């Protein structure tokens, strides 16, 4: 590949305008989240990358809560809790409806002073990891239970008599606003907890990773990932539960009840009428809590579907598994093989080292392995379970306001920012309190239509991956490990305009070579199109797509580093994967014949069809 023109930077957000039909889009989002005109010079000095891994779609105004809570809390642990010496947090903005990030470095003269507090604070967590983590589980589950207790009933015609006789002196709108504040605060609380361990987990991983690069120059990233990664994460329990249920169906001789596309209700009814079907139903019910708190999305969008709210989703996967189990197919992940391979790799590298160096290798590896489970497991508790409850309650509120005439469609609340929702609640409360009509029903419906059109217009264009000039060095651990933004990745973007022939490069995320037909997917709703043996190509994947991993032969994604969920999941499923290709999902079309080499990070289009 020859570069005819070498690019050194990318467009400025100030020069990248939204489609005409999206005019006025900036007003949809909080003022601090958009690029301000009077800050042009400051903002143009920074390099911004689009996080289409977590936020592949345009934000509805309410949905900024996800990026605001997540990325702000990520930053605070680097900047204010543990004082990671070379790295503060990540700034974020919304541009043309998509999310852009910029890592904040620590001024060189300030770095040395952070070492001592870092040593004390991070040292405390590393030294007491297991105890603190057990405590964490209690805190997180406590918040989830509190969230589950929230409700948004419609306002009654009169204050309940018991509130009068008890001398309460407060009305139901007081409780309504308190419930809303609790909804938002509980969400904020668990996002704070989300990062309590994650940043340190990445630090320990990067420490081991850097050490390996020193003692084994040129060691493949994949080798380090395989040495550290566990083989059983809480993230795979939901899929493993479905497989167990499928096995149970075969054992109990219930295969006939599992009719494709029948839906959960019909199948459960059929089972109730079949001998021993009730045993299966009991097992199904037991699996729901907590394992059906699982989304086929990623937890950041109000429209994400959760198994527990859409039982036909998990039931559909069970039907597929039952069919395969009945054929005698092995459903379980190759856990034993993964362990054998991990031990082989670790042992062979360790053998190459002098005893003193080997001791450090084993010490650092030991810490990385101790902290690593959190890197995967937390995702289930926060993104899946917590956000599942959060969105369910939020939809409940949206429906209550819909019933009160505030908008045209039940889920339209998400076209308001969370501050506007609070204002709308007070509008509702005022109308109720004074005995007049709230203003909302005559204000919001047309405003929401205006906003809906803007969001659709923004969605008509995919985001530019990178803005402004990339730096020589990136030190913030997440930027490197999760997003895969390395110097090499930047170079790939810079060269992306040049035709690489029929070749696409990305992270060598999970080894194996396969050839097959491409299936390009841009959302979870298209998963059912996938045919056996196809190669899944997507902007980003979600761990909850696990149940279809048994059908596909490889995965290719646009964005994601070694520690992205797609990479982690593929390694544990033994599926070849190339992540972080930049634009594979737009260069490849469904039906193209591909060759994917997961150990070398290449994807070749074999024919132009």
């Amino acid at each position: 590949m020859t570069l005819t023109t070498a690019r050194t930077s990318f467009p400025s957000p100030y020069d990248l305008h939204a489609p005409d039909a999206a005019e006025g889009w900036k007003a949809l989002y909080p003022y601090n989240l958009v690029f301000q005109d009077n800050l042009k010079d400051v903002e143009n000095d920074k390099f911004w990358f689009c996080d289409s891994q977590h936020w592949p779609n345009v934000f509805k105004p309410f949905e900024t809560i996800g990026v605001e809570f997540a990325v702000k809390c990520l930053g605070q642990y680097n900047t204010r809790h543990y004082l990671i010496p070379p790295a503060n947090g990540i700034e974020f903005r919304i541009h043309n409806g998509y999310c852009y990030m910029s890592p904040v470095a620590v001024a060189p003269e300030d770095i040395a002073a952070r070492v001592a507090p870092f040593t004390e604070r991070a040292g405390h967590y590393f030294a007491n990891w297991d105890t603190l983590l057990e405590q964490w589980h209690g805190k997180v589950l406590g918040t989830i239970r509190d969230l589950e207790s929230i409700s948004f009933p419609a306002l009654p015609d009169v204050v309940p008599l018991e509130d009068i006789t008890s001398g309460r002196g407060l009305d139901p709108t007081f409780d309504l606003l308190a419930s809303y504040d609790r909804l938002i605060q509980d969400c904020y609380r668990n996002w704070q907890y989300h990062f309590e361990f994650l940043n340190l987990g990445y630090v320990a991983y990067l420490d081991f990773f850097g050490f390996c690069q020193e003692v084994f120059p040129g060691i493949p990233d994949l080798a380090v990932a395989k040495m550290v990664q566990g083989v059983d994460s809480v993230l795979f329990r939901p899929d493993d539960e479905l497989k167990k249920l499928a096995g149970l169906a075969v054992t109990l001789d219930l295969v006939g009840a599992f009719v494709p596309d029948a839906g959960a209700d019909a199948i459960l009814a059929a089972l109730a009428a079949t001998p021993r079907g009730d045993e299966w139903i009991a097992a199904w019910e037991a699996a729901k809590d907590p394992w059906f708190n699982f989304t086929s999305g990623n937890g950041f969008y109000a429209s994400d579907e959760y198994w527990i709210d859409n039982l036909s989703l998990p039931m559909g996967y069970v039907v597929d598994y039952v069919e395969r189990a009945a054929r005698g197919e092995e459903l379980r992940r190759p856990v034993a093989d993964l362990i054998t391979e991990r031990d082989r790799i670790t042992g062979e590298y360790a053998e190459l080292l002098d005893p003193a160096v080997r001791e450090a290798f084993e010490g650092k590896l030991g810490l990385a392995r101790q902290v690593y489970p959190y890197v995967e497991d937390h995702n289930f508790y926060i993104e899946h379970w917590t956000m599942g409850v959060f969105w369910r309650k939020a939809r409940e509120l949206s429906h209550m306001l819909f019933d009160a005439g505030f908008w045209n469609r039940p889920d339209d609340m998400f076209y308001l920012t969370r501050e506007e929702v609070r204002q709308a609640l007070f509008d509702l409360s005022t109308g109720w309190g004074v005995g007049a009509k709230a203003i909302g029903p005559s204000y919001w419906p047309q405003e929401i239509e205006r906003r809906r059109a803007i969001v659709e217009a923004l969605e008509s264009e995919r985001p530019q991956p990178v803005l402004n000039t990339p730096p020589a060095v990136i030190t913030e651990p997440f930027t490197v490990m999760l997003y895969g933004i390395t110097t090499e990745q930047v170079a790939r973007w810079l060269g992306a305009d040049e035709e690489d022939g029929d070749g696409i490069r990305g992270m060598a995320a999970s080894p194996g070579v396969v050839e097959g037909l491409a299936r390009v997917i841009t959302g979870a709703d298209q998963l059912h199109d996938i045919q056996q043996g196809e190669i899944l190509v997507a902007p980003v994947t979600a761990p909850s797509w696990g149940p279809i991993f048994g059908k596909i032969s490889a995965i290719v994604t646009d964005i994601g580093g070694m520690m992205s969920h797609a990479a982690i999941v593929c390694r544990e499923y033994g599926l070849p994967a190339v992540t972080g290709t930049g634009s594979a999902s737009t260069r490849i079309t469904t039906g193209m014949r591909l060759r994917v080499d997961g150990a070398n990070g290449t994807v070749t289009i074999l024919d132009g069809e």
Partner: protein
Amino acid sequence: MTAYTFAFDSTDEPLHDRLGGKCTSLVKMTAAGSPVPPGFAVTTLAFDAVLGAGLRAHIAEQLAGLDTQDTVDVARRAAVIRTLIMEQQVPDDVRHATIASYEALMATCGGEVAVAVRSSATAEDLPDASFAGQQDTYLWVTGLTDVLHKIRECWASLYTDRAISYRAANDISDDGLSMAVGVQKMVNARTSGVAMTIDPSNGDRSKIVVDASWGLGELVVSGEVTPDNFVIDKVMLSVVRRTISDKAEELVVDGVAGLLRRTVDAERRTTPCLSDDELAAVARLAKAAERYYGSPQDIEWALDADLPAGANVVLLQSRPETVWSQRAATPAAAPGFGIDSIARSLLAQIGTR
């Protein structure tokens, strides 16, 4: 019965002073399951029987009073000795054993095939082959008559000018001087080369370094062609670095004519001469040799065009790597682990990623 020959796939214990370094290694690697082309050794006992007491005495006479500074005289005496060896009658039992082994080898190969005939010395007796001045490897030898002739030539190479001078200068006595000769099926090499299970540029033991070019490996070993170079991670068998060179010439097997040295066509000159799968197979071969011997190895290998893809890599030689393996390991300072070392490595990351 005296063992005048020894098949590479024999299960008997190979003795270094009967088979010499090269043949001993080939027997051991065959026993270890490596893909070694079939062949046999004509042992040192055969050489001893050929020379016999009489010829040895005659050679000693020729060498008496040798002045190594008088190169003309050394050359004259060496030529006389070599002629004596070339014309010496081979005892019947040695001859019969050699012919029987040759015919058994042809049968194994499904009919008459060309062979390579190579000296296999016990190391102390000969200087490095590159100084010999006379070939100690004969490629593409066909037919019994020619094979027997080349075996004699290998025996005679013990008495090149250089070899004689070397032994004289190093006080190596001719008493008991002997040599084995290897006879091995020729490989129809599409690609060949060498591989080391240690990076020769820096002693990094986590790497396998492969040099490869088109045709037979002789041009790579002699340095007459610039080979493709691959640095491979030994554990993952993934490519860390690859350098594809302009491979201008190749030595190939050309059916009837035997060996042919020719320029490489333009397209293939800069095409990699190994696919990634083939490269991994070479790396696995080198790794197995290292594991067998328990120390870094320097191997010669080839891709045999007559074997099926996926099973076409053969091992031609394995010998110990000598440069880095013999260096006294400098004890490394203990780097430590724990929070202080983590803090240090975080600071070191600035400017390196």
